[in-house]
């Protein structure tokens, strides 16, 4: 009976893929119900998978098709994969329910089913990126992810959405070009596409010192490709427009899940394909560290200069992506754990911030300018509370998710080399102050009583669905902040299974 659980990851992926094309012939309303159901079912199945793999000693391999290991395609499920899948489904569901009201406003009814095709395909590609054991399958789903994300950006149909989507596509295609040529080089020197088989060959290559240069080139190209796609500084130019102009659910999902899917693929590449020790020998971790630190500071400095709340949150994403890359670059296992935890912390807080920012804009004449937002927190209370919690988590106040990940980053840095210790701690301190500057300023602005009576309409009701989504978001952020120990244990065990 328990072995039946092994089919769940496959069921999730197939369910999401099949529901995409089906949605194209459904009406918007039915497509919405189908999509929400599929995301919920995938969440539940992934949760059950997580519970199942926690009980197992080692990850299990699920064979796709009839052919065995070196030729066939495989799914590999460990604790970290199942945890990420469960979490991504949960965040996607909450982003959809929280943004549902704005979705109906922004997207015409006849185009609604197109939005949900993109959601289903995005879910399928994220789950596949998490679970796959095959590099080329990973590449194909990276592309599907890009196409679906492009659809989410342009669904609103304004001129600037289409322009943002075009710019996003161009940068993403440059990134995927680098990823695919790197996979081709790796295939050329190892003769394999499955991650575990490539890893064995890579160890042999390192031992025999034969194809060292192509290996370094492949590692470099892959890292740069994923860095472009996940908007690491200096490749972040496309991000603010893409995130801030799209509809509420799109921005929440794009900022919290799409870039994280790529980053998780990079994490698998680092630990499972190349191996963390070999990765350190290539020097890629030092480069990631430097660019991560630069992104942390420059993203925050850019965010301070914004007067628009949406753009401010978007720029803060650049800084948070920087944290994750900094953790990858620390060169110790604990840094990877901290980064994986920060993926969860940032995804939950950032999607909540986008949903609450849209709620605040709704009661301020659809404007996200900080002047118009004065007093918005008192007009839409649950959005106001959500914004405070999200801000506190981003700044890193104790009890909230962001604080826990900062603690783990700092303690991971102490295990590393001396130069990185000092740089990390200083950068964390400066970045916290910068984060506080813009988030606290915006929070104060949102709670400053408005003198003119323009928006004094007290009859506003946010709707039960919105309140519920916001409450669950807050619950997740607090859970990650307070009950982080079991989650960090799972992440540590999952990463041990990677190597």
């Amino acid at each position, binding site marked *: 009976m328990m072995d039946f659980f092994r089919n769940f990851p496959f069921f999730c992926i197939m369910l999401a893929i099949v529901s995409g094309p089906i949605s194209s012939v459904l009406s918007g309303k039915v497509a919405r119900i189908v999509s929400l159901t599929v995301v919920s079912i995938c969440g539940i199945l992934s949760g059950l998978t997580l519970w199942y793999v926690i009980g197992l000693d080692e990850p299990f391999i699920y064979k796709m098709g009839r052919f065995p290991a070196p030729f066939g395609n495989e799914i590999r499920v460990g604790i970290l994969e199942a945890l990420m899948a469960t979490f991504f489904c949960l965040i996607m569901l909450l982003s959809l329910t929280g943004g549902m009201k704005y979705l109906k406003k922004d997207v015409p009814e006849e185009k609604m089913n197109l939005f949900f095709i993109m959601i289903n395909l995005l879910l399928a590609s994220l789950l596949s990126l998490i679970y796959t054991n095959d590099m080329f399958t990973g590449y194909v789903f990276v592309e599907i992810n890009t196409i679906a994300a492009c659809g989410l950006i342009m669904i609103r149909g304004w001129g600037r959405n289409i*322009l943002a989507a075009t710019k996003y596509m161009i940068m993403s295609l440059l990134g995927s070009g680098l990823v695919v040529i790197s996979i*081709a080089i790796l295939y050329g020197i190892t003769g394999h596409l499955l991650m575990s088989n490539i890893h064995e060959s890579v160890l042999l290559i390192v031992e025999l010192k034969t194809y060292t240069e192509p290996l370094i080139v492949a590692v470099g190209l892959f890292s740069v490709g994923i860095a472009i796609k996940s908007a690491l500084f200096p490749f972040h130019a496309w991000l603010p427009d893409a995130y801030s102009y799209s509809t509420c659910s799109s921005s929440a999902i794009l900022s919290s899940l799409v870039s994280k899917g790529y980053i998780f693929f990079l994490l698998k590449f680092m630990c499972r394909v190349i191996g963390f020790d070999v990765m350190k020998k290539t020097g890629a971790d030092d480069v990631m560290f430097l660019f991560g630190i630069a992104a942390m500071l420059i993203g925050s400095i850019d965010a301070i200069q914004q007067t628009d709340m949406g753009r401010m949150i978007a720029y803060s994403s650049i800084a948070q992506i920087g944290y994750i890359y900094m953790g990858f670059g620390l060169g110790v296992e604990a840094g990877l754990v901290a980064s994986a935890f920060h993926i969860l912390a940032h995804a939950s807080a950032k999607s909540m911030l986008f949903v609450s920012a849209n709620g605040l804009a709704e009661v301020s004449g659809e404007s996200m300018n900080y002047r118009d937002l004065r007093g918005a927190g008192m007009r839409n209370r649950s959005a106001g509370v959500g914004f405070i919690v999200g801000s506190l988590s981003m700044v890193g106040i104790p009890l909230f998710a962001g604080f826990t990940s900062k603690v783990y980053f700092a303690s991971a840095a102490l295990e590393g080399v001396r130069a990185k210790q000092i740089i990390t701690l200083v950068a964390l301190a400066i970045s916290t102050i910068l984060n506080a500057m813009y988030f606290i300023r915006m929070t104060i602005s949102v709670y400053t009583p408005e003198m003119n009576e323009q928006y004094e309409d007290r009859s506003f009701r946010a709707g039960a669905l919105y309140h519920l989504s916001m409450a669950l978001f807050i619950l997740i952020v607090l859970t990650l902040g307070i009950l982080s120990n079991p989650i960090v244990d799972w992440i540590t065990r999952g990463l041990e299974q990677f190597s």
Partner: protein
Amino acid sequence: MFAELWDNYISVGAMILFGIGFGNLLLQRNMIKKIIGLNIMDTAVYLFLASLGYIEGRLAPIPAEGAVEATKYINPLPSGLVLTGIVVSVSVSALMLGLTVKLYERYHTLDLDEITTMVRKEHE
């Protein structure tokens, strides 16, 4: 050094083509030229993959009469990857062309810089 480059002339050519395509996709201002760059870049990857699988003097991997030993054929896996890659590339090109049409209908130009200026003016 040059002897090595000469021996691997297909790989070298593929990498040069990849660079040309990458540069065009990144630097051209005209959308159509960007898409042409994208296609050159993707094709370079297929050339590289196909050259990896090719073995001098062997046949295409289609068994003519029943099962024949594998040593007579080239490596079929890279060819399979190329086919998958072509499908991805076609869909991405179609999406890019669709976006170009949308932008052209709205702004009557293919120049991305001009479009950016117009969009900025629209929202001031």
